[in-house]
């Protein structure tokens, strides 16, 4: 019986022990899993940012989807296009026959022939702006018809169905192109809404311009078509290419040798030759001339396989001439086709050897190259969303490729370097992420923002370092413990103040105050430190009995009224001085005499506010470092006859300098990442100017302003992530250096 209970007791104890062991193990596992997962989560921040940013630096790729026989096999193809969804292809032969076909297998959906009703043959075909989709067909009796593929979308059974039709925006009646000698060789045309401009060149090198307008009649019958004809001035060279912009205000007339005449055709009756340039050097031939989307830049392809971008730039005399901005050399054979994207500043080009390349002008990058055929391609089309390409080989086969090219506008250079943006006079650093117009060239240079961040940090550190470090040295080494017990919590209160409050005060109270009392503020920077030294001198002159009352660590308390008086004096003197010397307003005086502009919310205000925010950080860490210097070092120095200040300089600061350095680094890290203050106390304009009286836009404020409005996974979104990643890495690096220095110091102190 007794042994039984002992047995059960033992059993129980054993099972209890086992249970405790299991609990111990579970606890250990739980801690490990929990701990590791928390650490992983934290570390993941870096990888997540990196993961979001990475795609913008990737290059483009194309994937072959299908290859099939093209409609009108054997015929010469004059124009090839794709619809919005890359589902339907449109093709016109040189004879005016057209067809819509399924882009995925080549099945013809509907086809027909454009004719002018008289049976005359087609002599030239010109495609207009890809967004407008119009194609102009000229006949040998000097008439032309404008057609436009149209895609009606319906959703029967919730599935997209596209019905393509060919529209005649200016009616089926051919438009007369006016009298001119010779047969039409070349044609260029643009049409938009109710206006079209058609320029033709005959084999006698005669250039004539026809302007077509459509007027709706009030009675609601057929709209009336009016045409005017103008002959252009005689061109000296043999014309090989013509180009009209979508607004129909500019005309480029080019020769194969690279001469380009620029006509201003805003006034259709009086075309004006503005300038003549040569875009080619050596004996290359011009093989392609196209507008980039937006109608500002032109792309010149030549027989050497190079494509260059040109746009009008204003020179010193306010005259515009086109200048070469950048060039790409993706091919060794001559360029045969250049096709711009619809909305972005990218384009596709193909050469005579069957290679093609995707490029982007802003980034200056060749994003992808590949070989598609062994000979020159007949035609090439890109879908409006730039996600598919359609190639027509000279053997009459079509190949459709999908394109993965999400962020072509970003390159290392377009983010950090100077970029020559369209319509700018020279390469610049610009941040301008969005605009009202659709074909706008986004400007994603992080340089002005980084500059703004560093500018804020610089002025903040200039303000904070003396205040924090000198203050910390005094507090740690000279101050009486009684006062120290008061000062340290005060600094902690300072650290606890939310930056949104500092930013709000800086923006709404300090900025107007500084503007009004600018003289006083500048005066204070000199006068107040001076007043401390003067006070020291005066106290020194006092009888020893009185002066010792102020010493022994109570100097800071004695100086409190001096500070208040100094500030009051500076503010009071500000207006009289301003009136006496600066015509009543220093900001106005500065801008008149030195051209220094003054913003109310400027870097001085930000510097003071961020300085205020980082002082507690720098103060606490340096104070710790100075206070931690082992006592035997200072007593040794004092015993050898050094004054306490000499001990301070020669021993204490020297020993504590790594700690002070790490304090400054950590303060710098905070200043760099500060968001609310820079957001509220600057104008947030991304300019690059070191002027202390002007604002800036910092990386952090930029993220805060633009992030909520940016579209998920767009280039803008990813560039903002990049800005965050830059901030992360900079502060992380700075803090790591500081931390390592601090740990070394700790080891050093313990060895002393």
């Amino acid at each position, binding site marked *: 019986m007794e042994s039984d209970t002992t047995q059960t007791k033992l059993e129980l104890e054993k099972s209890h022990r086992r249970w405790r062991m299991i609990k111990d193990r579970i606890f250990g596992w739980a801690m490990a899993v929990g701990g590791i997962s928390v650490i992983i989560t934290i570390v993941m921040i870096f990888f997540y940012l990196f993961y979001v940013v990475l795609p913008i630096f990737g290059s483009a790729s194309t994937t072959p989807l299908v290859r099939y026989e093209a409609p009108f096999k054997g015929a010469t193809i004059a124009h090839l296009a794709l619809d919005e969804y890359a589902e339907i292809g449109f093709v016109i032969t040189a004879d005016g026959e057209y067809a819509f076909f399924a882009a995925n297998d080549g099945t013809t959906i509907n086809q027909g022939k454009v004719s002018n009703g008289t049976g005359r043959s087609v002599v030239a075909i010109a495609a207009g702006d890809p967004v407008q989709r119009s194609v102009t067909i000229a006949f040998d009796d000097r008439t032309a018809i404008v057609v436009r593929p149209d895609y009606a979308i319906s959703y029967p059974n919730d599935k997209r169905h596209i019905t393509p039709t060919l529209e005649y925006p200016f009616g089926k009646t051919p438009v007369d192109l006016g009298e001119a000698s010779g047969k039409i060789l070349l044609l260029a045309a643009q049409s938009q809404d109710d206006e079209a401009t058609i320029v033709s060149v005959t084999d006698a090198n005669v250039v004539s311009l026809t302007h077509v307008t459509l007027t709706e009649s009030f009675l609601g019958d057929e709209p009336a078509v009016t045409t005017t004809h103008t002959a252009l001035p005689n061109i000296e060279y043999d014309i090989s290419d013509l180009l009209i912009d979508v607004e129909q205000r500019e005309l480029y007339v080019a020769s194969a040798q690279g001469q380009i005449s620029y006509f201003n055709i805003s006034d259709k009756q009086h075309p004006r030759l503005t300038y003549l340039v040569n875009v080619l050097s050596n004996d290359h031939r011009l093989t392609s001339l196209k507008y980039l989307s937006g109608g500002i830049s032109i792309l010149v392809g030549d027989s050497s396989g190079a494509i260059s971008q040109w746009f009008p730039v204003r020179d010193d005399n306010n005259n515009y001439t086109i200048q070469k901005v950048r060039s790409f050399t993706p091919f060794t054979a001559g360029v045969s086709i250049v096709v711009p994207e619809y909305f972005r500043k990218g384009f596709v080009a193909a050469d005579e050897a069957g290679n093609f390349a995707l490029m982007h002008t802003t980034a200056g990058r060749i994003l992808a190259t590949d070989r598609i055929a062994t000979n020159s391609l007949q035609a090439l089309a890109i879908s409006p969303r730039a996600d598919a390409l359609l190639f027509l080989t000279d053997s009459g086969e079509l190949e459709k490729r999908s394109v993965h090219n999400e962020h072509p506008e970003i390159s290392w250079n377009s983010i950090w370097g100077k970029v020559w943006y369209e319509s700018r006079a020279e390469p610049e650093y610009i941040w301008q992420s969005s605009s009202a117009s659709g074909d706008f060239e986004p400007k994603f240079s992080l340089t002005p923002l980084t500059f703004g961040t560093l500018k804020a940090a610089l002025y903040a550190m200039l303000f904070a370092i003396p205040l924090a470090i000198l203050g910390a040295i005094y507090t740690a080494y000279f101050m009486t413990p009684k006062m120290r017990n008061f000062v340290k919590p005060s600094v902690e209160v300072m650290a606890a103040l939310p930056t949104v409050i500092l930013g709000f005060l800086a923006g709404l109270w300090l900025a107007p105050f500084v503007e009004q009392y600018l003289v006083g503020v500048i005066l204070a920077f000199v006068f107040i430190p001076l007043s401390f030294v003067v006070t020291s001198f005066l106290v020194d002159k006092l009888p020893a009995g009185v002066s010792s009352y102020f010493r022994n660590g109570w100097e800071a308390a004695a100086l409190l009224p001096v500070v208040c008086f100094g500030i009051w004096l500076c503010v009071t003197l500000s207006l009289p001085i301003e009136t006496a010397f600066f015509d009543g307003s220093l900001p106005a005086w500065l801008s008149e005499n030195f051209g220094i502009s003054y913003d109310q919310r400027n870097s001085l205000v930000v510097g003071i506010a961020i300085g*205020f925010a980082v002082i507690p950080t720098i103060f606490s860490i340096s104070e710790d470092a100075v206070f931690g210097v082992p006592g035997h070092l200072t007593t040794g120095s004092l015993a050898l006859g050094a004054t306490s200040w000499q001990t301070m300089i020669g021993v204490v600061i020297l020993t504590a300098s790594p700690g002070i350095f790490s304090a400054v680094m950590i303060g710098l890290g905070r200043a760099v990442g500060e968001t609310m203050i820079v957001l509220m106390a600057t104008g947030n304009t991304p300019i690059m100017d070191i002027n202390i009286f002007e604002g800036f836009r910092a990386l952090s404020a930029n993220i805060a302003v633009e992030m909520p409005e940016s579209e998920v996974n767009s280039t803008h979104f990813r560039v903002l992530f990049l800005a965050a990643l830059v901030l992360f890495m900079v502060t992380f690096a700075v803090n790591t250096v500081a*931390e390592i220095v601090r740990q070394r110091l700790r080891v050093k102190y313990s060895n002393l």
Partner: protein
Amino acid sequence: MKSIESINKWVGSGSPWVWLSAGMVSLNLVMVFGLLFLISVRGLGHFWPAAIESVELREKDGSTTSLLGNFVEDEIVSAARVRGTGSTVPEDMEFVRRYLIKVGNRDVSGADFVWVNETDITSREIPLDSFMAERDEWGNFYGNLISVKLDGEIIASGATAWGAMQDGIARKTQIRRQIKGIEKDQIGKINYAMERLRLRTKRLELDGVEAGARIDKIAAERLSLEKRYEALNGSLSELYKELGRYSITAATVAGQQVELPVSKIVRAIHPNQMSMFEKIRYYFAKMWEFVSEDPREANTEGGVFPAIFGTVLLVMLMSVFVTPFGVIAAVYLREYAHQGLLTRTIRIAVNNLAGVPSIVYGVFGLGFFVYFLGGNIDQLFFPESLPAPTFGTPGILWSALTLAILTVPVVIVSTEEGLTRIPRAIREGSLALGATKAETLWRTVLPMATPAMMTGLILSIARAAGEVAPLMMVGVVKLAPSLPMDGNFPFLHVDRKFMHLGFHIYDVGFQSPNVEAARPLVYATAFLLVVLIVALNIAAIRIRNRLRESYKAGDG
């Protein structure tokens, strides 16, 4: 000669440098307390009923105009600057004092603040009869009361008008409360239930259920809700009719007669007749309104209760996440992980994360929590409300998590420090008595480290309460339609957006169309936020000290 020597001696003693560095401490102190003083004075002064003054001004053409309002601010500017704005200032003057007067009546005169040069003022007095009415829209009204109307009939004028108006306002306040009760609580509940019914129907549709008992039940429920809604709507429209009955006629200082519906008046006072006691009562009433009411007029008037609520709830949610995870990570790092190079590196990395800018965490929160996690949660659990996102949009949960990640390094570092300080002897003692490692940790080490954990939590709360930048991306809004906690199941709606004191300061101070009018309120909000943060800090420090004391007692 002697003086140079003494100066040399003075410089040699280092005394100027000591005093210079002492001065830096004084300057820091002056800045901190000056700032606190500024916020307190401006923030607390906002509620005091300022005297209404009437001013006569001489215009350029010799005529006079009168203004009625509160003097808000004055400043001295150089005469040149004033002349530059087109005002005339006597030739011999170099400086001009000018006043900012809040004249209200935005609906009558357009601008509610006017700058006035002292030189233009011909007389300045304090009229006893003038009153100020706070309104629901168009800001304050300043003028003299003429009569009170009920249903268009004058019921009181002259001396009795004031009492009649106050009665009208009291009645209006009562009706407003009823309306609010119906609109917010009852109709709000019905709307919420309707929305849930809609989602349930959608859910059934997605599951392929097209008819059946469940659908019929939903239809029946919807019908009964609609009936209740109709009934409530009827009583609402009656209340609204009742509300519109009173109106007052008042004259502006320019003599223009204005008719104001009492339904738009929040309260009316004539501060020039008020006794000190009344003023104090008014002061505290205004203060109470500030902390307990909803904001009015695009956040420039009224209270900040939703912002206080949002801030506190956010910090509480964050603490729930940050404490266990921070402590577990610290315990793992200190007690379980192998103390090698890797652990040391992780420790430095964690330490440094505390210095990473908060905006970076905001970006991470938006990308990872909101779009990635939230988007996937919506796909999995809330397909019925798509494309309207439930969790795939900024909200208080994501804000709390973002702040938790932001502050978890603080808790880890501080807890680790606490664990390091516990003497080995205590651990060894416990192990020697046969306790397992888990038991040692749970029973002795962790309790002893509680003060350190509390310190970490306090520090993280203090940081989180003042953080605004990341919240702007992950959930804060200028005006939230409903609080994230209410009487509808599940009571705590962590997917909702919320208001926040810090963001309120930024938004009202910088995004508001009428910054001048909003400024006092921003100071008051800033004061409140400072008080909140200091109070949190102090409370936490108290707790920490008490814990420290109790464990010290335990040692002995």
